[in-house]
């Protein structure tokens, strides 16, 4: 399905895509988003069309010229369902750090947003400004969930942020696997980061107790900023650097 030259009504199906569209100055064209999109505040107030399995009827009713989705959260039957009602779908890959600026540029071309190239340059500069090398790279563990323990491993966006800020991922696994309590106890990290909307301090305390009364500092972070590969990546890296410098 061809993408129209002048896209006036857009629906975004991932929170980081929503943020990217606003960041390139095309936020006024967004008419609906997925359920998770909550930033910027204007996007939070827009009609919601579902998340993992978006509601195609609702999407159709909002009369978009284009639907934007990310490679990671793209339901396989979405494209044919949208094609059946004549709505084009554009999918962008955004799951790693270097892909964000590229995605911004692409979205700028597709939406014909004049501010996009500058925004992409600013983003790249923001990222570069946060690059650090540390004499003793602290070993950081990112715990997504505590029972069972799920961690952010290598080849993830969170790992990219750790590498950028001169830290080291405390785990040797890749992706987002369930992690061994023994391995945590045997090689305790210098710091554990956990998403504050999903995990609370008490759950973290229970985890450390189960790992043999580990005494490891832990810190809650805003997962919306730290786990979304979007325009706030500079803010995430800056926050991480502040945490690491404070140690």
């Amino acid at each position, binding site marked *: 399905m061809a993408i129209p030259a002048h896209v006036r009504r857009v629906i975004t199906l991932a929170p980081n895509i929503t943020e990217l569209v606003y960041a390139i100055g095309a936020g006024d064209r967004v008419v609906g988003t997925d359920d998770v999109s909550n930033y910027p505040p204007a996007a939070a107030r827009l009609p919601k069309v579902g998340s993992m*399995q978006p509601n195609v009827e609702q999407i159709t009713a909002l009369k978009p010229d284009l639907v934007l989705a990310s490679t990671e959260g793209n339901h396989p039957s979405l494209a044919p369902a949208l094609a059946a009602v004549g709505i084009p779908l554009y999918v962008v890959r955004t799951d790693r750090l270097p892909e964000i600026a590229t995605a911004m540029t692409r979205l700028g071309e597709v939406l014909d947003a004049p501010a996009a190239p500058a925004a992409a340059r600013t983003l790249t500069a923001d990222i570069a400004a946060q690059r650090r090398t540390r004499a003793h790279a602290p070993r950081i563990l990112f715990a*997504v*969930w505590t*029972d*069972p*323990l*799920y961690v952010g491993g290598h080849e993830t966006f969170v790992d990219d942020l750790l590498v950028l800020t001169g830290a080291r991922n405390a*785990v*040797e*696994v890749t992706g987002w*696997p*369930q*992690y*061994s*309590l*023994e*391995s945590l*106890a*045997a090689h305790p990290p210098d710091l554990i980061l956990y*998403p504050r*909307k*999903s*995990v*609370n301090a*008490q*759950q973290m305390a*229970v*985890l450390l107790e*189960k*790992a*043999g*009364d580990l005494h490891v500092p832990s810190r809650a972070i805003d997962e919306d900023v730290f786990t979304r590969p979007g325009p706030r990546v500079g803010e995430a890296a800056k926050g991480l650097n502040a945490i690491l410098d404070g140690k």
Partner: protein
Amino acid sequence: MPHSDRLARPALLLTLLLLVTLAVAVAIGATRLSWPSVWAGDETARAILLRIRLPRVLLAAAIGATLAVAGVTFQTLLRNPLADPFILGVSGGAACGAAVSTALGFGRIPGVVPLVAFAGACGATAAVFLLARRRDHTDPTRLLLSGLVLNAFFSSVILIAFSLSKSSDLTAALRWMMGTLFGATWTSVLLVTSLLVLGMAVLAFLANDLRLLAFGEEDAKARGVNVERVKLIGFAAASIVTGAAVAVSGIIGFVGLLVPHLIRLIWRRDFRALLPLCALGGAILVADADLLSRVIVPSAELPVGAFTAILGVPFFLSLLRRAR
């Protein structure tokens, strides 16, 4: 016991196998333990061995024994080879309780979800039992059918709870759906083991009645068995132990179905022998499955339920072929 001599050999063999399994499972893990340093009192090595690995291995064995004992009890009570704690709705009830309570946001308060899961398991079996009751009689086919239908209902509720919950709640509910022995504590070992011992004591007390029941209800009645009472007590005992197991470790499939059949194919059909042999067999299967799940990918853990099937099914199929 009339068959004590014939029980002795398989029991001895399985006990030896269990001991070897436990020894290997304690020796191997995600981290390499140096025994001299454990001995010398190295804090980390001791914590890994005594607070992480040992309780986990023992919990795996206790959960396996519990599920196999519940399985053989249900199969005998219903005289149906397909009966299994999970087919009868126990798992569905537990998972439903876990999913709904996490969707309502209780996942972040420790202890609430397992408690609701336990209540769900017990509630589901009580419902299945009551649904299958007609006048003063419980019909095995109706019991199985009620279990199947309730399971379908629970699945729908779980699906809806999942679709409505946040992704972090999903992770919490998945813990019960996928089953894991992660984070085993001595408290959980004690809880499951003591309920298992209690349940097995009750079932051992009923063992002769259950053996007679295996030949048919009319037969058992003619021999003076109070069939309805045996059914009620047996059903309650098997459900309560399963509920506790599911509340602690989530759903670990195939054990309750597979182990009793394996034991029957190799050795005996007499319930008095089946009860202890199934407990041993279940303990071996889940302890081995958990060992594989935690050592195959270094530092990462795979779902234990996948390995109970991977280990058990080929063995089961080869026995089935030989038995024709």
